């Protein structure tokens, strides 16, 4: 009883410990800081996977705990990526342009430099003008602010409209999906100002850090991703523990009843929706510099559906379950689609995993939903029950809290 509810939950400590050990291990194994056991590109894959874990736990809070099946959180992830990508692209292009203009007899005017950057960036979409949304692209702090503020505002406005009119369940899911689709379609246009389907590229080159090399940049981003995941895990563990967690889960189970207790349910949903959107955007801002490129296809509704699949397979309503689901499914996905899995020759038909992986994933999703709704995370319950000891036949249905009290 003296422990705060957050740390009463042993799983938080375990997760942070595992994350720390993993980070130390990758650091020791990387090219830049360790013995070089793993390649730089694999460090990036691991770093990206941590970002996916971060958005997965955000999804778990909004869906698993609060019951809002959002099919739009990858839109926020993408916006985070675009926001940081704009600065990366601008600053890098500025460096290149400044370098090439430096050889001129007359020093280039700021207008000339700006025009040259514009031509470099927007040439692919037949333009050289900077669209208004690039107004702050020269400033890293402002773009970093945009990473959280733009998705936060979008989530706030969208959520306010949707929750206020009491849209729930499948209708709300469709609405969030429509939002994602609209955003993706908008970005696909060449005159959206974000280079249409070319997206933003070259994001792995961090301006000002040219001397570092990708091996160093990859491990630094890995650390940043691990830190963000750790902090995100703490934040969400705090949100879903204690009284807030109690109210949020109550809203999931019976929101009408929560209203009659005097809680303004819509405000709670809005809070959860917005804070998870902002964290998803932070995850995106860390992900895309490691991926090197972002384009509107990343925001397509399928990405958000994948997110729901990860969380379902990993286990809804427990944060570590969502993280496990993200790791497991995304790594399995790259193994199967990357040609890692050996094809199976059935004699009459050759099972090629690059084609059949989605079918396998779909079947696993259905199987988990039907037969094992606790997901992979549910396996930990067996371990946990053993550790608490057996409280005898009559007390078998009792909870750990009671067991300790004896």
């Amino acid at each position, binding site marked *: 009883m003296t422990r705060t509810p957050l740390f009463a939950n042993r799983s938080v400590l375990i997760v942070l410990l595992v994350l720390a050990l993993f980070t130390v291990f990758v650091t020791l194994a990387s090219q830049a800081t360790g013995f070089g056991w793993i390649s730089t590109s694999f460090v990036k894959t691991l770093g990206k996977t941590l970002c996916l874990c971060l958005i997965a736990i955000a999804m778990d809070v909004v869906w698993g705990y609060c019951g809002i099946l959002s099919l739009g959180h990858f839109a926020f992830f993408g916006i985070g990526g675009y926001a940081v990508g704009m600065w990366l692209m601008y600053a890098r292009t500025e460096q290149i342009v400044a370098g090439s203009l430096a050889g001129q007899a007359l020093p280039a005017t700021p207008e000339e430099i700006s025009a040259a950057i514009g031509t470099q960036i927007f040439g692919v979409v037949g333009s050289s003008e900077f669209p208004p949304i690039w107004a702050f692209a020269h400033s890293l702090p402002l773009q970093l602010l945009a990473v959280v503020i733009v998705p936060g505002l979008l989530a706030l406005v969208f959520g306010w409209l949707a929750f206020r009119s009491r849209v729930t369940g499948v209708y709300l899911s469709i609405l969030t999906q429509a939002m994602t689709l609209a955003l993706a379609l908008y970005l696909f246009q060449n005159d959206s100002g974000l280079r249409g389907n070319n997206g933003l590229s070259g994001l792995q080159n961090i301006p000002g850090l040219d001397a570092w090399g990708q091996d160093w940049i990859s491990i630094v981003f890995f650390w940043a991703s691990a830190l963000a995941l750790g902090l995100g895990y703490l934040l969400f563990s705090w*949100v879903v523990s*204690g*009284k*807030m967690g*109690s*109210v949020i*889960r*109550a809203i999931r*189970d*019976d929101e*009408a*009843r929560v*209203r*009659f*207790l*005097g*809680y*303004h*349910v819509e*405000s*709670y949903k809005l*809070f959860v929706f917005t804070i998870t959107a902002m964290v998803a955007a932070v995850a995106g801002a860390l992900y895309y510099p490691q991926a090197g490129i972002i384009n509107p296809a990343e925001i397509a509704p399928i990405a958000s559906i994948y997110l729901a699949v990860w969380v379902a397979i990993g286990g809804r309503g427990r944060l570590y379950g969502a993280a496990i689901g993200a790791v497991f499914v995304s790594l399995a996905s790259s193994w199967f689609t990357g040609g890692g899995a050996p094809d199976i020759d059935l004699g009459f038909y050759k099972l090629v995993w690059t084609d059949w992986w989605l079918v396998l994933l779909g079947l696993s999703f259905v199987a988990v939903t039907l037969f094992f709704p606790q997901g992979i995370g549910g396996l930990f319950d067996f371990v946990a029950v053993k550790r608490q000891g057996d409280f005898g036949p009559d007390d078998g*249905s*009792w*909870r750990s*809290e*009671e067991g300790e*009290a004896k």
Partner: protein
Amino acid sequence: MTTLLEVSGVSVTFDGFRAINNLSISIGEPELRAVIGPNGAGKTTFMDIITGKTKPDSGHVLWGEKSLNLLGMSESRIAREGIGRKFQKPTVFEAQTVRENLAMALRNDRGPFDVLFYKRSQRDSTRILELAEEIGLLDQLARKAGELSHGQKQWLEIGMLLAQDPRLLLVDEPAAGMTPAEREQTTDLLKRAAETRAVVVVEHDMEFVRRLNCKVTVLHEGSVLAEGSLDHVTKNPEVIEVYLGR
């Protein structure tokens, strides 16, 4: 005794069916009031209207000294004004413990940030223990509400109602699923609560109503058929015809 709640001329139609028909009832503070009537008389709908769940087609529902109009308010705002409700079918949060259920109902600030930064105080812990004692669930505090028996869930919901510390308690069929001894405890508890607040109890069980020993309102087809002491209304020939006679 001053008037706390004034329902006047309220009508509700569901798909052309008039469930509440020009209903007028006023409740004082403190007061204990029993509402009886045959199935479908509109007793639950009456509570739905007061708590904001159902919007009436016409009429007024006025509340408190300032005669606030409840009809324009959201459910949560009405609850914060001091109206608590126990549902006909016990509705507690089954996946949460008895303690969590009570803690959620405790009278505290209800905003998201108040709740996020809420620290359990000694006062609240003591209050939860008191309530648990009162509803006989002291040794069940750490159990999931879903594991309780039907009667215990009823008790828990009554406990949550008391935890809110409302000025008006609306209690829909509290005794359903309770043993005779539990029923007796429930009447005692409601009578005690009504010493300081307004309590409206819907109940079919005549023994239960008799023990409450209070003013009775008989509803029939959405309006008041008779009102007065239990002996008075049970002598009313119309009441005998539509309710007691069957």
